C-alpha cells in the first residue's frame, strides 16, 4: 500500500500513487469513457473561434453564471442593521445556501432563518409557516428587527407578505409594534443586487412611510453602500473619509462589524449595524447617495419620492471615481475636502506613475457585478491597461451602453467590449480566442485560470479560496492603492514564475523589478 505510518500522504499525493492510478484507469475502462486523446481533441475544439460562435449563439442554457439570486442580497442587506435577523420566507435549503455563501466569503458566522416551507405549505400557502416562524425567531434569537424576504417557492404560490405579517402579528407571533420590514425577492427575477435593492427599499419604506419627519430637515447624508463583499474594509474606509471631511452621515445598512467580529471570547450573533433610531432619523437627511448605482435604483427612487436629493456612483474606485464621490459629497454637504485627502490622492497617482512601465498596455478580462466591472474597467483604463472583455451576468443593456461610453472616452478602450447577460463559459471562449494578461473577478474564475492559464486576480465577491481580502478597502484613494498593489503583485508573481527555472529560464529572475 502507498500509505505508511511513517509518512502519511495527504489525499492529493496519495491519489497520484500507482495503485490509485490503476484503479482510476480500470474505472474509466469500465465506464466506457472516451479515450484521453478523444477528450483532448474535443477540448481543443472548444478553444477555437468556431466553438466561440456556437457558444455565443447559446439561448436556453447558462453555464457557470457569475451571479446569485435575490434573497442572497436580502440576507446581506439585513446584516447591515442593528440586531436584525434575516427571515427568508420559503424553503429552508435556500436559506442554508445564503448562510454558507456569506460565511465562506467573510470567514464569519452568518445567521439567517427560514420559514421552512414544505410540500403542504406549497399546497395550502405559507401563512402558518410565517406565523410559527416569526414567533420562534423572535423568542429564540431576541432580535430588534426581523427582515423578511422570499424564495422562489413562496413567490410561485403567491404568498402575500404584507398580509401574512399582519396576520402573524394579530396571532401574537411578535408584538404589534415590533419591526418586521419585508421585501418580495423572487430568485427568478434579477439577481442578488436586485434583492439587496428591494430589501433596503422595503426597510426604508417600513420606517419612513408613516413618519412625519421632513426630508432635508437635517444636514445628514444617507449612504447606501450596495451589495459589497468588501464592505468590511470599504465601509470603514468611507467612514474615515467622511469623518475627515466632517460630514454628518448615516449608512443605510453597514455590515462591516457583523461580518468582522473579534475573537475575544464572546460570540456575537449580532454586531454593529445601523440602528433603528438612525434609520428613522435618516428620512430627514438632505440626500441619499448610493455607492453602487445598479444595486440601488429602486431605493434611490424611493428616497427621491420622499423629497431627498439623490446621487449614485459605480463603486468609487481609482482616481477619477473617488474624485467624483468626494466632490459630490462636498457639494451636498458644503464641507471642504481636507488636505489629508488631497495628499492621499497624490500618493495614489504617484504610486501609479512609479509602476506605469508594468501597467501600461496590459490586457484584462473583468467579470462580476455591473458596478464592480464598471469601476474596475475605469481604474484599469486610468493605469493604461485595456479591459478587453468586461462581462457581467447580471448587467443589462443600459449597463453595456454605459460601459461603451467609458471605453469611447479613453484611447485604451477601443478594443474593449462589454458583454451583458453573459456567463463564465462565454468568458472562457473569449479568453481562448482573444487572450488577455489577467482576469479580474472572484473565486469562480479559478476554473478559467486553470483552463486558459490566465492568472486570476480576486477582487470581488465571492472570494472563497483566499482569506481576508475583504478586510481591506478597495474604494477611495487608499483602496485604489490596494487594488494597484494587488494587480502588480500578480504581475510580478507571474514574471517571477516565468523566469524561475534554475539554469533554464532564470536569466531575468531579477532581484529588483
Amino acid at each position, binding site marked *: 500500500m502507498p500509505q505508511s505510518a511513517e509518512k502519511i500522504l495527504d489525499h492529493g499525493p496519495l491519489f497520484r500513487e500507482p495503485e490509485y492510478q490503476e484503479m482510476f484507469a480500470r474505472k474509466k475502462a469500465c465506464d466506457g469513457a472516451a479515450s484521453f486523446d478523444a477528450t483532448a481533441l474535443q477540448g481543443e475544439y472548444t478553444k477555437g473561434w468556431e466553438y466561440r460562435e456556437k457558444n455565443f449563439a447559446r439561448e436556453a442554457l447558462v453555464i457557470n453564471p457569475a451571479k446569485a439570486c435575490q434573497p442572497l442580497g436580502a440576507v446581506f442587506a439585513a446584516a447591515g442593521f442593528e440586531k436584525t435577523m434575516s427571515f427568508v420566507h420559503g424553503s429552508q435549503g435556500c436559506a442554508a445556501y445564503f448562510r454558507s455563501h456569506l460565511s465562506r466569503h467573510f470567514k464569519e458566522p452568518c445567521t439567517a432563518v427560514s420559514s421552512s416551507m414544505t410540500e403542504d405549505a406549497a399546497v395550502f400557502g405559507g401563512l402558518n409557516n410565517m406565523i410559527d416562524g416569526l414567533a420562534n425567531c423572535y423568542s429564540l434569537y431576541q432580535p430588534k428587527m426581523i427582515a423578511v424576504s422570499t424564495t422562489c417557492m413562496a413567490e410561485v404560490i403567491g404568498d402575500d407578505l404584507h398580509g401574512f405579517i399582519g396576520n402573524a402579528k394579530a396571532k401574537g407571533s411578535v408584538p404589534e409594534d415590533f419591526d418586521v420590514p419585508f421585501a418580495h425577492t423572487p430568485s427568478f427575477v434579477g439577481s442578488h443586487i436586485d434583492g439587496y435593492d428591494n430589501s433596503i427599499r422595503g426597510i426604508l419604506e417600513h420606517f419612513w412611510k408613516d413618519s412625519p419627519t421632513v426630508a432635508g430637515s437635517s444636514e445628514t447624508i444617507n449612504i447606501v453602500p450596495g451589495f459589497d463583499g468588501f464592505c468590511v474594509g470599504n465601509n470603514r474606509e468611507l467612514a474615515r473619509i467622511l469623518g475627515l471631511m466632517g460630514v454628518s452621515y448615516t449608512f443605510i445598512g453597514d455590515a462591516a462589524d457583523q461580518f468582522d467580529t473579534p475573537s475575544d471570547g464572546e460570540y456575537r450573533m449580532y454586531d454593529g449595524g445601523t440602528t433603528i433610531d438612525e434609520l428613522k432619523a435618516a428620512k430627514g437627511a438632505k440626500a441619499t447617495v448610493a455607492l453602487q448605482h445598479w444595486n440601488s435604483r429602486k431605493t434611490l427612487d424611493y428616497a427621491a419620492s420622499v423629497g431627498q436629493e439623490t446621487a449614485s456612483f459605480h463603486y468609487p474606485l481609482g482616481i477619477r471615481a473617488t474624485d467624483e464621490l468626494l466632490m459630490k459629497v462636498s457639494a451636498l454637504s458644503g464641507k471642504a475636502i481636507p488636505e489629508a485627502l488631497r495628499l492621499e*490622492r497624490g500618493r495614489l*497617482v*504617484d504610486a*501609479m*506613475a512609479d509602476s506605469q*512601465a508594468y501597467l501600461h498596455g496590459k490586457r484584462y478580462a473583468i467579470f462580476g457585478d455591473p458596478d464592480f466591472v464598471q469601476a474596475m474597467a475605469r481604474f484599469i483604463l486610468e493605469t493604461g491597461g485595456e479591459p478587453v472583455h468586461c462581462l457581467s451576468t447580471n448587467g443589462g443593456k443600459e449597463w453595456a451602453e454605459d460601459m461603451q461610453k467609458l471605453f469611447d472616452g479613453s484611447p485604451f478602450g477601443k478594443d474593449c467590449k462589454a458583454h451583458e447577460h453573459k456567463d463564465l463559459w462565454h468568458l472562457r471562449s473569449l479568453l481562448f480566442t482573444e487572450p488577455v494578461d489577467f482576469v479580474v473577478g472572484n473565486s469562480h474564475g479559478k476554473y478559467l485560470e486553470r483552463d486558459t492559464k490566465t492568472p486570476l486576480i480576486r477582487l470581488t465577491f465571492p472570494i472563497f479560496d483566499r482569506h481576508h481580502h475583504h478586510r481591506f478597502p478597495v474604494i477611495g484613494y487608499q483602496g485604489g492603492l490596494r487594488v494597484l498593489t494587488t494587480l502588480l503583485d500578480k504581475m510580478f508573481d507571474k514574471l517571477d514564475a516565468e523566469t524561475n527555472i534554475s539554469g533554464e529560464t532564470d536569466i*531575468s529572475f531579477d*532581484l529588483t523589478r
Partner: protein
Amino acid sequence: MSLKARIATVFDEPACPTNREKSETVRKKGCSKPLTPGAAAGGCAFDGAKIVLQPVTDVAHLIHGPLACEGNSWDNRHAASSGSDLWRRSFTTDLSELDIVMGNGEKKLFKAIRTIVERHDPPAVFVYSTCVTALIGDDITAVCKRAGERFGRPVIPVEAPGFVGSKNLGNRLAGQTLLDHIIGTVEPDDVTPYDVNILGEYNLVGEFWFVKPLLEELGIRLRAVIPGDARYRDIATAHRAKANMMVCSSALINLARGMQERWGIPYFEGSFYGISDTSAAIRGICGLLVETGAPAELLDRAEALIAREEAIAWQRIAPLKPRLAGKRVLLNTGGVKSWSVVNALQEAGMEVIRTSIKKSTEEDKARALAALKDEKHLFDRLAPREIYRMLADGEADIMLSGGRTQFIALKAKTPWLDVNQERHHPYAGYEGIVELLKRIDLAVNSPVFPALRAPTPWDEEGRLLEGADRPAEVTPTFRKFANGVLEDADDC
C-alpha cells in the same frame, strides 16, 4: 606593486585624449575628480570593480570584508548568463568585530576560499578587498597566491577597496586586474582569423544575445565578451583574438589599450545601440578582422547581412514612428550612451533636447556633438534641480536615465524610462532598438501621466472649483520644487 602605484598606472592612460593633454605633474595626480564630502554621490571603487567583474559567470566572487559590502550589492544588476549561475551567489567572509581586532581576516579568507573550492569547484575565485580589510592591512594578494597554489586554480586578488576613489576608478582597476592576472594565462588551441573580443559589454538583460547570432552568422568567433556572459577561460584566452571592439570606453579603455600594447590587438570603439550604430559596429569588427588577415569577402557578407537586418528593423519601427515622432527627449545617462542612444532616438523621429556627457570620453563627446550639431545640447552634469525645472516646465516629453534620477522625472510628472543598468529590457542590436522604442512608446503615451498632471479638482482650501467637475484635458499644474529635497536623487 603597491596599491598607490597601481592606481597611478591606471591613471596614466595614453589612449585617453584628456590624459595626453595633461602636464606630467597634473597627470600624476590622476584623473579621478575629487570627491565632494557632503554631496550625495554614486558608488565607490569596490562597487566599480565588482560591476566590471561580477558578470563573469562561472567564477566565485568572494568579497573579503564585513557583510554589507556584498549584501548591499548582491545581484543588483541584470547581466545574464547562458550557463553557470555561480556569479549570482553571494560569497563573503563576513568579518566581524573580533576578526578585525584579532587580525583573523587573512585566515578567514583562506578558509572561505577553501570552502568555495570544495563545494563549488569553480575554475577560478575572484577575491575583492574592501575598506576594512585594506585598512587593517590584510594582504589579499599573498593569500590569493597561497590559495592558488594550494587549490590548484587561479585565485585572483581584486584590489579596489572603496576608499581609493570613485566607481570609475574601480572599473579601471578591475580592467587592470584582468590584464595583470588573467588575460594571456591560457593558450587556446583553436584560434581562427575571425576571433574577436567585445570589451565593456555587460550583456544586461541578455541584450548582447540580440547581436551575437548576427556575428556568428558572419562566421565571426567571439573569443571573449568581457565581462558579459563570460567564462573564465574565455577571458584567459582573450589575448589571441585578432581584434577588439570597445563598447564602454570610460570603464575599460585601459584594457583595450593594454591588449594592444602587449599583444598587438587593434581596437575600435563602437556601440550596439541604434540601427546605424549596430551596423557601424559590425562593419568595424569585420574591417579590423580583414586588416589583420581575414579574407576580404567578409566585408561583402557583412554588408548583405546589414542590409537585410536594417530593412527588417525599419519595417518594425515604422508603426511606432507616428506615435513617437516629435517627442522631445532629455537624455541623462552618460558614457557611451550619450551619443549612441541619441542616434537611435533620432532614427525614430524623436528630438533629443539635451544629452549628458558625464563619464563620457572626449571621443564620446565628439560623437554626441556630431549627432546633436550644437554644444548647447550637451551638458556635463545637470543638477537635479535643473533637471526638475526642465521637466516641470515641460521642456521634454520623456527623460531617459538611470534609476537614481527616475524620481525627479516622476515628481515632475514626466514620463521616464530606465536606460541604465537596472533596466529589465534589452536594447542592443537591431532587435533591441525596436524594444527600446516600444518601451518609450509605452512610457510616453501612458495615461498615468495625464492623470498626474491633471489638477486636483478642488482648490487649496478644499473648495470645489467652478466647472471642475471633469477636466476634459490636461492642464499642467506644477508644484514648487522644495529646496534641496531632490539633491539626494543624484545619479551615479
